[in-house]
């Protein structure tokens, strides 16, 4: 390989450099300190993707929401996220979620795909869910979409109340724009 030419020269320089600066064992690629020991490699932590959420069958959404199906929209890492909620007697179920471009294998993509966020939303009965580490922006988008869907449910409840007074039409449970706050920064 012709690359050997570079190798030879670089290593000559390496010896020179070591002579000038001393051997910093902590620096990248220096090996001795950086290699993992058998004890380290045997360390284990619980898998955060495998944690079961305690189900609370009695929780209810805060605020007055009308029964129905509502789809909210939020901004994710690289595209819109939608969350579809079924509201039944003040309790929500997350019945669907879509994404357009969340980064694969960082946690957020998998949490949408595997229903992790859906479980979190149902456990919280609203958008106040924990951030999934490694997926801050995706989580922000999911929260935004959930809040948007619930806002529609609240608007529908307000509309029903007003409609009972004969003063307003019930709004349709569909929304296509997220609220104005932007989840821009991680």
């Amino acid at each position, binding site marked *: 390989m012709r690359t050997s030419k570079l190798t030879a020269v670089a290593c000559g320089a390496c010896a020179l450099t070591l002579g000038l600066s001393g051997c910093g064992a902590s620096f990248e690629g220096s090996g001795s300190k950086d290699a993992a020991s058998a004890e380290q490699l045997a360390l284990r932590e619980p898998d955060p993707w495998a944690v079961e959420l305690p189900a609370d069958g009695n929780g209810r959404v805060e605020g007055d929401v009308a029964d129905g199906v509502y789809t909210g929209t939020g901004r994710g890492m690289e595209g819109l996220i939608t969350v579809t909620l079924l509201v039944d007697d003040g309790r929500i179920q997350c019945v669907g979620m879509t994404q357009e471009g969340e980064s694969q294998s960082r946690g957020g*993509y998998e949490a949408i795909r595997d229903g992790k966020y859906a479980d979190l939303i149902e456990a919280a009965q609203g958008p106040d869910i924990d951030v999934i580490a490694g997926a801050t922006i995706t989580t922000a988008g999911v929260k935004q979409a959930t809040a948007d869907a619930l806002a529609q449910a609240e608007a529908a409840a307000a509309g029903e109340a007003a409609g009972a007074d004969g003063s307003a039409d019930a709004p349709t449970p569909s929304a296509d724009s997220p609220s104005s706050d932007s989840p821009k920064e991680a």
Partner: protein
Amino acid sequence: MDKNTVSAPGLSRRDFLATGALATAAAAAAALIGPDAAHGAEGRIGDWSADGAPEGVPASDVTNASAADGTYREHNPACFPANDASPIPPREVPAAWDYECDICVVGAGGGGLNAAARAAELGAATICVEALGLHGGNAQEAGMCGILGGYSGQNAKQFAFPSYPFDPQALTDWAMDEYHYAADPKLIYRLASEGGKSLDWMADCGVQWRLGEVPVYVAPKNATLDHHVLKMKDATDAMFAYGQRHGVDYKFQSPAEALVQDDDGRIVGVVINEGFQQERFIHAKRAVILTAGGFCNNKALLDKYIPTAAMGCASSYLTASETGECFRMGLGVGADVSGFNSSASFDGGVDWQAEGGTWARFLYDGMTQLSRQPWLTIDRCGNRLRYMDSRVGEDGANAIYALGDLATIQMTPPGHRSYIVFDANYEDHLAGFAQEHCRKLLTPDLEQIEKVPEHYRDWHHGVADAIEADVLKRRDTLEELEADLGLAEGVLTEAVAKWNEACERGEDDFMYPMPPEWLHAITTPPFYGCRIGGNLYGTKAGLLINDQMQVVGTSGRVIPGLYAGWHTAGGACGENSYIGDPILGSLMGDVGLAFCGGYLCGTFAVENEMGD
């Protein structure tokens, strides 16, 4: 674009892949038939893929082979973030613009941050648009910028390659020989002469570099250990802050959708999808700079422009974007292509996509590191494949080369795949392998571990994922493993028998012998096997540019107003450069290339377009 996925609670990956069912039943439809039905709705990995036609996932034994004539390996398009090679046509000049600037930079990764900061520093009113919700792109996950001479820290040590004092012409001559002359010498000379200067400029902007002990690379001062993932985030953060101080207007979550071209053929703006919802026209009065990465995650573009990567790579480790829209926009205005069939990858790409997993993987996902250890490795004929040691020891440069060279070794066998095999005792051998760089397995006690997505802080998790997905096959007998890896009868069992004999002797008779301390017999069930190839991290095919970073059309003439940096541009390491050497691609490595390209784009766009 129809990119939807429906969550599928209660179904394992294997379950819904086995069915191969589609999840086009959107949320609303599912809702109509009730929550139980929605929970039964079957999603599939990759069904949010931008344009990919959904297809089923083939069985393992099918994906072992290439086409009948052995030339081509077809990937599962549903597993890719994008699958579209069509040029994106430009838009006409609108009646009214939404935003005005001198220079619009597309992308806020390593290249875009530098381009925007440089243009703004030199006096251009600059807008920088970014599809993601944050800056830094894939650059922030890189580890080092290669540099062979001309950087101030090297001058202080009187180091330059091929000899001191630094001579960019001599470096160019050497590099052109490496590239077998299939490159543009003016472009290579530009990289050679400006690479060190671009790194020094970044230092002036606030990036703290530290020169490697082997002085052929720099890394951010406070992120120098192998396991410091997101090493380069210190640098991209500093460049973002510098751009902000100089008035760059950054627009996040606003992907570029098309270029705007006037009647004279000049590029005068960019159409973005602001907030993913609102189409906006940005008037770039002087220039548009495309620095939004390459197309590691676009299957159709890989197939067409880098067939060896499409065949040889089993995964990509760039998880952000890399879907190639900027390249397609350039094609849409008649740009030429350079760097055909050139790419860069590391060893140990795990073939998740063949089992229906995602194509793009977090680099430190545990399974990737496990696959990169010195296991018995064979091709589908049963031939041993050599290993390349990444321990620095006495030879630092070779240790860095090991990553790319081992990728070549794993990508080139028949069928473009390699097979690693080990037994139940594999965990006992890892400490003794002591592999460095990004082959190091992550453990929860490490310094800066908080930078790692939580799931991957314990390497066992990713390996468990791989076993669950049957990407890492765990079988009770070698015969079962052999069959399920898709190998012909006897191929694996005979190779293992021979290996075990060498282990018993304590001496490897292979032409590239493993050291005796790595000879671990494969005798204790369960047995493990995994099919691997390259792990793609850089596409080097891209838009043709001249040495002032101006995009050149198929006419041979510059497309006025349009600039491109790497990796939207091509040509940084010539054509047919399999692994992108030297220094893992293009004299500067891939993040260094992006940084330097952005710096050059900002410099030349102002110099050429802002004069009176």
